[in-house]
Structures are given as structure tokens and as C-alpha cells.
């Protein structure tokens, strides 16, 4: 398959503490959105952050990966819902690090049990290139459950 390129452009004005920026995706799928340091490490206050964009990327990647695994096993999902929570934390030496991405998936699939879903969920984690990348910096945890099961 051919190589695929995707681009986004960020602007920034001023210093990190009081300055602000905006980010625009090349696809035009959303309008330029603002980001600031205060909204990155405090409350989002209607502004995005690198970690929120990473969470969006990881949730999107993992949802596709899980849908692919379930279809490959002959049990395509009617619906897969994934929430990714990315955590930025201060580490030794005062620098910041992305320490974890926590994936929670809920799947509506006919004819499979929790064990088969767990296998597909693990395979999807291995198959999603972002999971592998994030593991260089932090941990990736996966929890998957069938819709209508006890934890739902």
C-alpha cells in the first residue's frame, strides 16, 4: 500500500506561560482551535492540548484496530466505543512526560464471549501502531467489555 501523509499546522505567539497558539488540521475537518499552557496543565477551558489530540489519535487508532480484529475473527462488531485517557505528569527532574494512555472499549458483537473479546482487545493493542509508540514513554492499559454484560 502507498505511503500516506497527514499534516497539521500550529502557530504560537509569546512565551509559554502567557502566550497562546492555535492548531489546524490539513483535512479541514475542524476549524483552527486554541491551546495554551494553562489549559494544558489545568482545566481545558474550551481549549485543546497535545495530550487531548494524542488521546483522540489513540482512541481512533484503537477503535479501528479492534474493529479489524473482530471482523478478522469472523465476528464483526455492530459497534465499538472507545475512550482513551492520556495522562501527562511531572517526573523526576521536573520535566513532563506522557505516563499513560488508558483505553476503555465497549463492543456490541453477536456470538462472542468475554474471553474472545479480551483476545481481540489484546490483539488490537498489539496491532495499533500508536499503542506500541506510547509504550516507549508510558503504559498502555486496555479494558474491553461486551455491551449488555455486567460491567455495562
Amino acid at each position, binding site marked *: 500500500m502507498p*505511503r*500516506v*501523509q*497527514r*499534516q*497539521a*499546522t*500550529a*502557530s*504560537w*505567539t*509569546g*512565551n509559554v506561560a502567557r502566550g497562546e*497558539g492555535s492548531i489546524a*488540521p*490539513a*483535512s479541514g*475537518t*475542524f476549524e483552527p482551535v486554541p*491551546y495554551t*499552557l494553562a489549559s*494544558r496543565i489545568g482545566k*481545558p*477551558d*474550551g481549549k*485543546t492540548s*497535545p*495530550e*487531548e*489530540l*494524542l*488521546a*483522540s*489519535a489513540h482512541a*481512533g*487508532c484503537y*477503535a*479501528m484496530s479492534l*474493529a479489524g480484529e473482530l*471482523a478478522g475473527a469472523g465476528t*464483526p*462488531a*455492530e*459497534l*465499538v*466505543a*472507545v*475512550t482513551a*485517557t*492520556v*495522562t*501527562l*505528569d511531572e517526573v523526576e527532574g521536573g520535566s513532563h*512526560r*506522557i505516563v499513560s494512555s488508558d483505553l476503555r472499549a465497549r463492543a456490541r458483537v453477536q456470538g462472542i464471549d468475554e474471553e474472545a473479546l479480551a483476545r481481540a482487545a489484546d490483539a488490537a493493542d498489539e496491532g495499533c*501502531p*500508536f499503542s*506500541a*509508540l506510547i509504550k*516507549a514513554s508510558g503504559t498502555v492499559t486496555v479494558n474491553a467489555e461486551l455491551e449488555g454484560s455486567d460491567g455495562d
Partner: protein
Amino acid sequence: MATDRRAEVTWRGDLMSGNGTIDRVSSGVFGGLTVSWPARAEEPDGSTSPEELIAAAHATCFSMALSHGLAQDGHVPEQLRTSATVTFQPGEGITRIALAVEGKVPGLDDDGFAHAADQAKANCPVSKALAGVPEISLDARLVG
């Protein structure tokens, strides 16, 4: 203090013919964005993709780290404009990220800017999280 940011995605159907939406994010700044495999692996056709969002994450993280480094050295930037281009090889993953930054920074020379940009590339948290990408390139230039 740890900071959490969250995103919620729904996918319907299989990988190749199904499609999904990024329903909501912590900030509420976007939502209801369509994603699909053809839009990810072929032409975007107005849809975002995980790779585009990674490009956005990296461009924002790099810009903040660079503004911080420059200001610490006494050179608050008037403006930084950063693009990140993520190359995705289906079946393989992200093979390359190209960062390009144009800066308006009063009183700083090209070498000083290039050095600060290198530091930002090495140290921003998203760069560290993407350290497994085979190649991350950087083109930094000052503009009038």
C-alpha cells in the same frame, strides 16, 4: 500534578467498510468528526485520521516547548509557525514525522534558533512518546 485528557470514539461495522466518529474530547473543542479506513489510508476527503491528530499533537507540543526554551534564553518569540507531517505506512505504522518551523524571534540568529528548535524536538513530551518513530526530521528557519 498529573493532567488527564480524554477522547471518545464510536466505530460501526468492520474496518474496511465501517466508519467511526470522534464523538467528544475533554475540552469540547471539537466533536462528531468522521473517521474511516479509506480516509486514513487513501485520500482524506474532509475526514481526519489518527495520523493527522498525531501531527496536530506533535506540532502543538513542539511549539510550546520551543517558546519555553526561547523565552528562558531571553528571546520571547513573536510568532512560531510549525507544521508536522506524519507519514503512515499501512501495515507498518508511522515511519516518519517531518517538523518544520518558521519563527519570528527578535534578536536571535539562525544558529541560536536551530539549537533551541533541536532542544524542543528532543524534549517535548510528545516527541518522547513518539521516540519509536524511525525518523523525526526538523527544518527550522527564522523569517523576517
